[in-house]
């Protein structure tokens, strides 16, 4: 197994007109906290409600309104920090980030500036070639989400819905440790898996509960290594921020486009302007965000309506004890049970898949279960456009099928047919096998009888096989047909060899 690398390898360079370039990527992920109510008010956080129907006067910035913190959101942030193997800061402060925008009714966002609740941590990401990379986490802090706009209702107006205003977000900031679009996508995927495992965020990017701001810069070969050694950002290129990437599919594309855009600019003699950009998936390009171009002076200062957030060390330990097994640990355990690194990572990517696998593998060979899952179940799910949570045949039922293969009740081929039957018609596999007589025939008498029938019907072939022993396979096929496919192939082979006096395979 590869030990996680600190600095990524050469094959991730991009070729420009004038030479090779390194990409450097950092990410700020906004993950909506799973909680019933908002961070500082008692309004609901449910998705998809009627406009402005989940808004407290606090969320709407009305006169005299004051924030009161939701303890669950604090807990979820700590839980996430622990899942990122990060330092939990027992004392943190809330600051006001001041700016004007119609989706920000208070005229400031309550966030955390210099003293966040969670400090440094890391995320391990697995890449396709089996390589493992450590991506550092700089910090995690709690902050309020802003409202939403509708821009297409009237030509000269925008409509503001404050349902989302005040919902708790965890802003997770990575260190600039990603070196390719593949790594960026893998990081986001892993982070999403971790928070879903922890139950602290549902990671539904299409509902906006997870969004990524991706920082991309390019530099000449060697620049990144110098940066890692010195910590001096001057060795890196000017970075641009691609804001609000809200789809896993687009993240790699956006990074690729932006990196190439920057290379083109620099090779063309220009300089990169530090700016915020948006990825337009329809045309596959990033473009500058007009509204964010002016320099922002956020005038951060500690929010005087709140007191410092103080955590009890025992309470944090208590949360640590309730953490579920996380993807990395689960992967290691699956590998110890005999799965390959690749197979294990595929299974742990989604907690539901891993859980399904574990139930599936109960009391049977781990590899056999993994193969069954990969080859039979995932294929059918894909074909039918279903996710693992919608699988029509339960893990327990699939487990029964595997057991029947293992104890030779049915053959592998019959098992696939059986799965097709219960997939579309439902039912208990063991019952179906009984009802439809799908049991494998191992009874030597029946096999001998079938062999006699085939021999009797094909005397010429019997002569041929004496000269060409390989024709035995044809006989096996015939005997299988004769028994309606239920004979155990190995038993048929053995019986045929004896009956036809075939030599042992060398």
């Amino acid at each position, binding site marked *: 197994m590869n030990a996680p690398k600190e600095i990524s390898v050469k094959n991730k360079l991009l070729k420009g007109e004038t030479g090779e370039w390194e990409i450097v990527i950092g990410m700020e992920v906004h993950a909506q906290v799973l909680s019933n109510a908002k961070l500082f008010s008692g309004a609901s956080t449910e998705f998809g409600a009627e406009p402005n129907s989940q808004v407290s006067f606090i969320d709407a910035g009305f006169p*005299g309104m004051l924030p009161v913190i939701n303890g669950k959101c604090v807990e979820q942030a700590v839980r996430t920090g622990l899942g990122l193997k990060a330092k939990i800061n027992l004392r943190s402060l809330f600051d006001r980030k001041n700016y004007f925008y119609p989706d920000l009714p208070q*005229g400031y966002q309550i966030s955390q500036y210099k003293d966040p609740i969670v400090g440094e941590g890391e995320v391990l990401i697995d890449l396709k070639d089996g390589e493992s990379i450590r991506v550092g986490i700089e910090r995690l802090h709690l902050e309020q989400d802003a409202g939403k706009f509708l821009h297409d209702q009237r030509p000269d107006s925008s409509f503001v819905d404050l349902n989302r205003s005040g919902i708790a977000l965890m802003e997770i900031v990575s260190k600039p440790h990603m070196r390719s679009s593949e790594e960026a996508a893998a990081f986001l995927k892993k982070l999403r898996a971790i928070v879903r495992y922890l139950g602290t965020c549902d990671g539904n990017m299409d509902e906006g509960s997870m969004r990524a701001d991706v920082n991309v810069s390019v530099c000449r070969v060697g620049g990144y290594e110098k940066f890692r050694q010195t910590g001096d950002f001057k060795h890196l290129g000017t970075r641009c921020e691609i804001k609000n990437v809200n789809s896993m599919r687009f993240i790699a594309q956006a990074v690729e486009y932006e990196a190439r855009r920057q290379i083109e600019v620099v090779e063309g003699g220009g300089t990169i302007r530090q700016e915020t950009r948006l990825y337009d998936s329809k045309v596959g390009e990033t473009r500058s965000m007009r509204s964010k171009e002016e320099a922002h002076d956020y*005038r951060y200062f500690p929010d005087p309506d709140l007191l410092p957030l103080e955590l009890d060390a025992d309470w944090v330990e208590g949360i640590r004890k309730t953490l579920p097994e996380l993807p990395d640990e689960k992967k290691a355990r699956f590998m110890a049970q005999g799965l390959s690194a690749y197979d294990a990572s595929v299974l742990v990517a989604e907690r539901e898949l891993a859980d399904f696998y574990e139930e599936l593998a109960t009391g049977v060979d781990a590899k056999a279960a993994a193969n069954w899952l990969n080859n039979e179940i995932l294929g059918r799910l894909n074909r039918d456009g279903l996710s693992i949570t919608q699988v029509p045949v339960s893990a327990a039922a699939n487990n029964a099928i595997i057991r029947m293969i293992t104890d030779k009740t049915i053959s592998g081929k019959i098992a696939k047919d059986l799965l097709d039957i219960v997939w579309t018609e439902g039912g208990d596999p063991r019952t179906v096998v009984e009802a439809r007589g799908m049991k494998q025939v191992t009874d030597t008498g029946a096999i001998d009888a079938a062999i006699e029938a085939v021999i009797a019907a094909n005397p010429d072939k019997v002569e041929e096989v004496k000269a060409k022993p390989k024709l035995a396979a044809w006989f096996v096929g015939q005997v299988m047909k004769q028994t309606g496919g239920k004979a155990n192939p190995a038993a048929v082979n053995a019986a045929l060899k004896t009956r036809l006096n075939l030599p042992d395979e060398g």
Partner: protein
Amino acid sequence: MSDLISMTLAEARDAIRAKTISSRELTAAFVGAIEKARPLNAFITEAGEKALAMAEASDKRIAEGKIGALEGLPLAIKDLFCTKGTRTTAASKILGNFVPPYESTVTQNLWDAGAVMLGKTNLDEFAMGSSNETSAFGPVFNPWRASNSNANLVPGGSSGGSSAAVAADLCLAATGTDTGGSIRQPAAVTGRVGLKPTYGRCSRFGIVAFASSLDQAGPMTKTVKDAAIMLRTMASMDPKDSTSVDLPVPDYEKLLEGGIKGLRVGIPKEYRIDGAPAEIDALWSKGAEWLKAQGAEIVEVSLPHTKYALPTYYIVAPAEASSNLARYDGVKFGYRAPGAHDITELYEKSRGEGFGAEVQRRILIGTYVLSAGYYDAYYSRAQKLRSLIKRDFERAFELCDVLLTPATPGPAFGVGAKTADPVEMYLQDVFTVTVNLAGLPGISVPAGLTANGLPLGLQLIGKAFDEATLLRAAQAVETAADFKHSPAKWWSV
């Protein structure tokens, strides 16, 4: 009629309980007085109809024997408290015709105790001022005039409408808010009592925020006993305010008993200001004598960072205000400027037209001191000075139980007399601002008149959450001062 309205809150309370007067009678008397006192401009919103309805409901409860702590007592509310269903303006154009759909905790406490609302009193816009001259609804005039003049004087600020209403017998008592002296200073220049409780004693929920770490609601009354009664109902632990303190509310009225024998009264030497009028100093010394005569021990103490308090305040308060006032943007409520072509113009015009000059000045100061490059030199430094000022008080309180100081650097001044230079106006708070910075309780008590008949007050400062001792000491000053003066009624229509 005039007998009814000149009662103290305690007297009215006893009369109502004894059923010698009804709430409706009492309320009607005040409603009438308010209508006749319009030249004072003490009220932005007169709520006569609502008041009478509340009085009738109260009388019904009294008949059923359900008598709350303030049952049937008519009060005036500073128009900074959000009152559900009644327009709330913060004396600003920018709130437009905002009618709050919620009630502030402090006023809810008053209504739960059976009190009656007469109306919303005038104030400096967003509580920023010391003379009630910055209100978008016109200045308030002090019911007091100098004996030798017909000139209109200011009632102090920012709670000028409340102080005028109390002094002119337009209510039994009023609520105010105090961020740098806005209860104590107006009370002092109108010859009445004004109490700012410890920060966190009264909830800030539903009070239009000025400077969050300094604002505190408090009672403005005719007597110290009335202030004790009001505070007991106004104060509460409020889960809706994260800075509200979880301490039980004592029976302040009961705790007034006991006298002040052995009480150590500190006299901070830095409050002796060069060039202050002789009358102020003389009254201060007299105050010490009064307390000594009742058994107190007078101790000289030092609060070395006193002179830095005002400049510290004028960094911290505007900084917090600049952020608190960002929500007034013409989008969710209040004034929206017509003719804006884009969102930036909407904000700039609405706020430029909606906020008055003093508010704009303070927003600009606050924005500047928080901006990049200045935060450390100004805001951060000012917050450290607060720690030093608080530490000064803690050290002084090792040697004494309360502090005695002048309340204001002079009596009420003429309308327009100090508006030319903002700093001159800011100096009105020189004795009061330290108390807000340290989060301590302070009270001003009427102590005497100037040579030309204008009231002067004395201030007492107490330990955190020790309003009981503070009120007892204040009552001792009140007893000795025997200030029985009321302004000659020049304003009645």
